[in-house]
């Protein structure tokens, strides 16, 4: 089965090479049939990779430990669910999953556009196949998941080797959020390939109007959503599994998935400016290219071991290939953009600083600065080693100092942006639009101050959240009112119809709403409290208004681990509310690692978060307790974000992008100096 899988990926590599050549030959010879054969090769490659994935799954389910990936990431007693997850439990297999997703996207793009964009598609296919081919090469030659173990004797001969059991899946990964987190994140990284491929094809064919943006708008949004959900799942996992009381630590790997998300958020907004006003064309091109590269860069950070991280895979020798690939992509893309500048001229200029365009511009500026700062902080150890020969690391204070103000500025723009008109806003209309949100915001500010809160960021955050919330509610209210009076619908129906008729706009507002919830959750951070103590049976630990009484200590065994568990009664204001059981697990297979099972009492107001830090010989337990206010709202916000993005994603009837190829230069007729 291992040889079969190996054959499949090798065959897929050949097919992707063929598809690349056929697409290019087809377009240069203007022969549709050759392009068609390239498309068929894309389907075939996807089929082959799917078979390879299934053979790896088969190897894992049948406990074939002669295969190194299986031996490294699975074991006999691992539950079936986690055996499936073991596909992406170690580096080699996760690369296969990556390639599998890439090929699925490629096939989907080819199929969806089989009757459309015929002049662009060959180039799209070529770009897709270069990406797929690159990762397949890595999969076949560098990190092959079908590699088998062998024992080498001193005289150089070797024989195959079959361990009796595998190392087992890394216990930290044996958690539901961690099982879905990598695939979702991969979808989020890989999906940006599609807008990138269309952008490059548009550059080559000089069709630099709205076609490529219209075609890829939904892809971008979907990918952005996957990446966002992947980030949140990662945070959730860190929160409940790593047991240090938080969900985000500015770790290089976390940063590397946040960066493309920030740039793609910028892109989602600046695209609107291009659609509406024909501005920012070069900028959008650059954003797409950067987003795609940051996706690759994230993989590079995670897998090359260039910066140390708790999340990273063991260092592998992939680094140089990534650097070559990324440089080549960047170089070729920039040359292409430079050679097409005349087609990327802005159709209009910025009329006023008080305009929607200007708000979008600031939004873009800030998001890109945030991304750059994070990139700088993440790569600083590497940079400083190049320049001064010592690695200097930077910690959370650097990232927080920059990103907290950036977050607040963005929040402000989220509220203010929609109040501005396109082109120019009169002060009169601004005064009208700002009145109600400002009143509520000032009231909130006063209320928070009256409640005794003196933390600057928190007060500003709550004030801005209120401001944005009121602007969004106002938007819905106004639209609903108009529908009610013009169509006689009842309020609920009017609101629903309003949203469904303008999905992109109101879906977007719902996403903005989710951002408010998340910011409330983030702001809770400033009131985190912690306490710790060694508790014998019957002893108590107090934190905030909770009191924890240790009632029992137990040991036992789960399916593939042994556990130590403290049982604590939780009292709040003297009243018993529930029992929490923080736990430590010792996994028996392979590395015999210990993991922490956090016990959580979560309410919208705050989380009580308990960790069993250790057990002493006399049976008393070390408990670390945290009270983290408002964390609930982060996960709630994520759910709302998912919902809002889904609404924006559903196609609106009759609004599918034009199927006609645009004529090069038509959009740019007025400004094309060559004509």
């Amino acid at each position, binding site marked *: 089965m291992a040889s079969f899988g190996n054959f499949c990926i090798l065959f897929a590599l050949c097919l992707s090479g063929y598809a690349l050549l056929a697409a290019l030959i087809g377009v240069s010879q203007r022969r549709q049939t050759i392009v068609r054969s390239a498309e068929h090769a894309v389907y075939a490659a996807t089929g082959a990779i799917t078979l390879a994935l299934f053979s790896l799954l088969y190897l894992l389910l049948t406990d074939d430990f002669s295969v190194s990936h299986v031996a490294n990431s699975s074991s006999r007693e691992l539950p079936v669910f986690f055996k499936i997850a073991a596909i992406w439990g170690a580096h080699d297999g996760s690369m296969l999953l990556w390639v599998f997703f890439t090929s699925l996207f490629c096939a989907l793009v080819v199929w969806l556009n089989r009757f459309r964009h015929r002049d662009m598609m060959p180039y799209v296919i070529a770009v897709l196949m270069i990406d797929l081919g690159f990762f397949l090469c890595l999969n076949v030659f560098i990190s092959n998941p079908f590699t088998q173990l*062998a024992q080498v004797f001193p005289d150089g001969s070797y024989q195959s080797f079959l361990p009796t059991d595998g190392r087992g899946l890394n216990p930290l990964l044996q958690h539901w959020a961690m099982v879905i987190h990598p695939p979702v994140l991969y979808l989020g990284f890989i999906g940006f390939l599609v807008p990138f491929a269309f952008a490059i094809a548009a550059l080559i064919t000089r069709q630099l109007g709205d076609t490529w943006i219209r075609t890829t708008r939904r892809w971008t949004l979907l990918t952005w959503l996957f990446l966002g959900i992947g980030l949140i799942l990662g945070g959730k996992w860190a929160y409940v599994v790593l047991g240090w009381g938080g969900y985000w630590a500015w770790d290089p790997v976390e940063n590397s998935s946040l960066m493309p998300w920030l740039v793609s958020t910028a892109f989602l907004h600046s695209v609107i400016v291009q659609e509406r006003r024909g501005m920012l064309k070069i900028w959008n091109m650059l954003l797409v290219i950067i987003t795609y590269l940051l996706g690759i860069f994230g993989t590079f950070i995670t897998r090359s071991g260039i910066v140390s991280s708790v999340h990273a895979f063991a260092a592998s020798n992939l680094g140089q290939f990534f650097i070559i690939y990324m440089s080549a992509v960047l170089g070729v893309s920039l040359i292409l953009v430079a050679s097409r500048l005349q087609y990327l001229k802005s159709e209009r200029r910025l009329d006023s600083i008080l305009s929607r365009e200007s708000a*979008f511009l600031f939004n873009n500026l800030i998001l890109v600065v945030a991304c750059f700062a994070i990139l700088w902080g993440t790569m600083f150890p590497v940079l400083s080693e190049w320049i001064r020969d010592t690695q200097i690391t*930077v910690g959370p204070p650097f*990232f927080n100092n920059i990103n907290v103000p950036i977050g607040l500025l963005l929040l402000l723009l989220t509220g203010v942006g929609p109040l501005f008109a396109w082109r120019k806003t009169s002060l009169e*209309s601004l005064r009208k639009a700002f009145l109600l949100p400002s009143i509520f915001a000032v009231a909130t500010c006063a209320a928070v101050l009256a409640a005794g809160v003196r933390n600057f960021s928190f007060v500003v955050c709550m004030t801005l959240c209120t401001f944005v919330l009121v602007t969004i509610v106002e938007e819905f209210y106004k639209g609903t009112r108009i529908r009610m009076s013009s169509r006689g619908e009842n309020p609920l129906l009017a609101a629903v119809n309003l949203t469904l008729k303008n999905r992109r706009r109101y879906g977007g507002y719902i996403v903005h709403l989710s951002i408010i919830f998340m910011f409330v959750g983030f702001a809770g951070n400033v009131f985190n409290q912690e306490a710790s103590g060694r508790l014998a049976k019957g002893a108590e630990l107090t934190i905030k208004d909770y009191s924890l009484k240790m009632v029992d200590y137990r040991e036992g065994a789960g399916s593939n681990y042994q556990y130590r568990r403290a049982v604590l009664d939780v009292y709040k204001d003297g009243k018993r509310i529930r029992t929490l059981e923080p736990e430590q697990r010792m996994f028996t297979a392979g*590395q015999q690692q210990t993991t922490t099972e956090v016990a959580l009492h979560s309410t919208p107001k705050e989380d009580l978060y308990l960790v069993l*830090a250790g057990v002493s010989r006399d049976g008393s337990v070390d408990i670390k307790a945290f009270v983290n206010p408002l964390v609930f709202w982060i996960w709630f916000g994520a759910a709302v974000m998912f919902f809002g993005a889904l609404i924006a994603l559903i196609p609106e009837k009759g609004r599918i992008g034009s199927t006609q190829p645009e004529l090069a230069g038509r959009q740019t007729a007025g400004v094309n100096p060559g004509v």
Partner: protein
Amino acid sequence: MQANNNLAPPSDFNSPFGKAALDGILLKEPRFRFRHKEGRDSLMNNVSAKAKFVLGGVVIVAALGWLGFVGFEESKAYYITVDEYAALTEPREGRVFKLAGDVVAGSIDRSKPQMEFIIASNNKEILVRYVGKDIIPDTFRDGSTALVEGSAAPDGTFHARHIEAKCASKYEAEYDKRTTS
């Protein structure tokens, strides 16, 4: 200026989400109305709008840069291995280090109020006292690769405020691999 006074309140027809959003509510504004007046006046405005944006951008970026610099100075740490630390000739006081090394088996002493252990690399060792408050990670144990962040104490030990640890990957080193094909 006059020409813009007849613009309706923004939310009535200006959608951040494209023209699709116009349906269902209010106005069917002819789109060309946005394109009027491209004369000399607006050209002057253009320059100043752009200049204002650039000015605003510069102020924002400068402020963030300053905040970043402050945060950087506060949190920078020299990331070196234990033997490099031992070989340092410059004064160690006043600098924050992040030392990488392996935890010497059997050296972890949890009996004292503050945990002590020895980390080593290339036959150089240093005694580390953990003075931080965070939970010691599960991966921290005999033989694991640890990163300790902190500073030199006057008594020659190293006071760590933060510990990261990774399991040593022994298993992979035990077998050589070869591909099947």
